[in-house]
């Protein structure tokens, strides 16, 4: 290994990383939590209310847990953030999406599920939290293998 090349690569990646300096850092504690309540707690979310305005579209049965398509929409007015948690995954928090006025509170993504589980979506609007859950049955888990 050439040390000069390492140094140059390091410097180059530091420059490349600069656009992210302003970004909220990855929430290590919440993503490292081993239960959905713990993940929510570390994000300061205590009493989310169930809401029919948080929509989760997903298959009832996912044959392959490695690729489970999930489509999320929040119709709660003023939604600024959406959290996606898979209750029974080893690390339930799968994603946190923050939206400014320029974007609709919507996201579609493929997720991995280790086993049949509730998928829990929490939307934040005006400092309050609203949630919905939906059970997805998994035939073959997609975490290990």
């Amino acid at each position, binding site marked *: 290994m050439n040390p000069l090349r390492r140094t140059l690569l390091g410097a180059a990646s530091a420059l490349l990383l600069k656009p992210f300096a302003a970004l909220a850092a990855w929430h290590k504690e919440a993503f490292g939590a081993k239960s959905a309540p713990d993940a929510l707690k570390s994000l300061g979310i205590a009493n989310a209310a169930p809401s029919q305005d948080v929509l989760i579209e997903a298959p009832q049965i996912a044959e392959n847990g490695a690729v489970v398509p999930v489509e999320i929409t929040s119709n709660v007015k003023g939604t600024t953030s959406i959290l996606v948690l898979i209750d029974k995954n080893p690390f339930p928090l799968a*994603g946190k*999406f923050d939206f400014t006025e320029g974007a609709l509170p919507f996201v579609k993504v493929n997720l*991995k599920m280790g086993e049949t589980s509730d998928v829990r979506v929490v939307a934040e609007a005006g400092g309050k939290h609203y949630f919905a859950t939906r059970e997805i049955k998994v035939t073959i888990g997609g975490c290990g293998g």
Partner: protein
Amino acid sequence: MAAGPMKMRATLGGGYTEVRVLMTHPMETGQRKDADGKLVPLHFIQNLTVKVNGRTVIEGQISQAVSRNPVFSFRLRGGAKGDKIEVTWLDNQGETNKTDTAVA
């Protein structure tokens, strides 16, 4: 498998712009074993940003629970033909990539 190229398409829908972006990335969970029975280290995208004409509209933080070669769909309010959409990601090993496209 290393991280690779991205693909993106942005099209005008009814009152919004639909952005579909594919990121080539292994999204290793740290739980999978390779052919020799050794654990494949955790390697996954942690941060992503969506910008419209230079302005950030979505910031995402994700975990290893997002599938390999992630495909995201987002919807941006309004939009016009030619708007520049830019998507960037950063993973837990410091790798990063970005792509841009004009709204069609």
